[in-house]
């Protein structure tokens, strides 16, 4: 579909070219504003890192992009198609993709969670193969072959037949990454994926993510791993109280932050 012109309170808006375009997204729980007018464009092959204190809305933002949660106002575009619209932004004239199309575009976004959320009753292999089988309609052999290739990629082929309870946290998280990759998404969301890990297990997970970045995966990452951000991020966003306070290159954000809130946060982070 060619870029379509959409009437909205943002004026005449062409369908964004970014792989994921988050436009003026707002969300509140009662009086609490979780997200305030957040706009981010994630271009193809971009690695964007979101940092900020807990409760700043980073994880909620990722869940909105993965469409695990609705939002109140704003637009979410994937590959130039409007896939979700806040209740308050309906009537702006923007036209949503058809439900079937939305479903298809949903598969373009993979997500990895802080708590892994592997299915404990399945082996690593079944964890990875389930969605390709059920959602993409691959037959069992195809799905398991694909799963094995991905487990190999994250260095866990020999653990394919283990249940998650028998794997370390780092191994579980690598399986979770493989599971998300099995749907062949164009964008990967990482929600503090190393925060629940023992320090000595963080490296192996970051290594997998670095490799993904090198392969050109588009990534939106919530993380406090500054070295990782410095190495792979194209842009770092500092969020506080639901809004984006500062945006810049990792170098600028980490070494010459302009905003006081960013400075204070980085100081606290370094003091840990």
């Amino acid at each position, binding site marked *: 579909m060619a870029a379509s012109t959409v009437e909205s309170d943002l004026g005449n808006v062409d369908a964004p070219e970014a792989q994921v375009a988050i436009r003026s997204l707002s969300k509140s729980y009662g009086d609490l504003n979780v997200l305030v007018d957040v706009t981010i464009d994630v271009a193809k092959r971009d690695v964007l890192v979101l940092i900020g204190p807990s409760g700043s809305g980073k994880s909620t933002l990722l*869940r909105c992009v*993965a469409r*695990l949660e609705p939002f109140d106002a704003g637009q979410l575009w994937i590959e130039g198609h409007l896939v979700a619209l806040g209740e308050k932004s309906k009537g702006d004239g923007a036209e949503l993709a058809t439900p079937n199309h939305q*479903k298809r575009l*949903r*598969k373009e*976004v*993979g*997500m990895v*969670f802080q*708590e892994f*959320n*592997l*299915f*404990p*009753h*399945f082996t690593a292999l079944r964890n990875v193969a*389930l*969605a390709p089988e*059920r*959602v993409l309609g691959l037959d069992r052999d195809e799905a398991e072959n694909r799963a094995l290739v991905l487990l190999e990629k994250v260095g866990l082929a020999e653990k394919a037949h283990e*249940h*998650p*309870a*028998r794997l370390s946290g780092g191994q579980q998280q690598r399986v*979770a990454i493989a*599971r*998300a990759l099995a*749907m062949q998404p164009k964008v990967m969301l990482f929600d503090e994926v190393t925060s629940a890990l023992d320090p000595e297990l963080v490296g192996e997970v970051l290594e997998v993510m670095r490799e993904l970045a090198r392969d050109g995966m588009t990534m939106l990452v919530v993380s406090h791993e500054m070295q990782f951000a410095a190495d792979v991020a194209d842009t770092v966003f500092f969020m506080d109280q639901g809004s984006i306070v500062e945006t810049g290159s990792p170098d600028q954000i980490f070494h010459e932050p302009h905003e006081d809130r960013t400075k204070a946060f980085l100081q606290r982070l370094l003091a840990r």
Partner: protein
Amino acid sequence: MIEFLGELVHYAPAFWRGLRFTLALTGIAMAIGVGGGLALAMLRRSRLRLARILATIYIEFFRTTPLIVQLVWIYFVLPIALDIELSAFQSGAITLGMNQAAYKSEIFRAGIAEVPLGQRRASQALGLGRIDTFRFVVLPQASAVILPLFMAHTMLLVKGTAYVSLLRVPELTHTANLISLDSFRFLEVYLAVGVIYFILIYPIGVLGRWIENKGSHKWRPLQ
């Protein structure tokens, strides 16, 4: 007493028939109970308020009235209300099943609530729909949680079939009643029928523990 226990063999065909009726009542009530219980549990999680309210009324009705009262109601009132014919066996099986559905739905609901939200989120993020998420992610995990309660409750169901003797369905208890009236050997007959119930019910508990140990240990976290 000992010699009469030997004479009980003459009544073996009657006991056998009673056993078959008890098993049939159990089986049908189980099927209605599991199917209906799952449906009720899902209705109670429905987005539609009316569905939630109706399910709650159903469940509370069956949980707050005695089974015997329910049996009489369904045997005498349901045929008139719906203008259908129900045999004593049919109404007994239906009542037990509907009663089971109410209790089992509460067990299922508790099990489903035990499955962490993150599991559903992960499944949804992978693109699995509501039904696939329930079938492949929620249900297997919920089943493992509720298994002990489910089995204990199934043991109660087998014993509950004895109430259907009230409608003169020739299941084990009614059979025992008839035989003891025929032989005037109440103690011996009820001893025998007690043993049969025990043989029927005890393995259910054993089976439950076996599945519990066998099935899910691989995916329980190592302590």
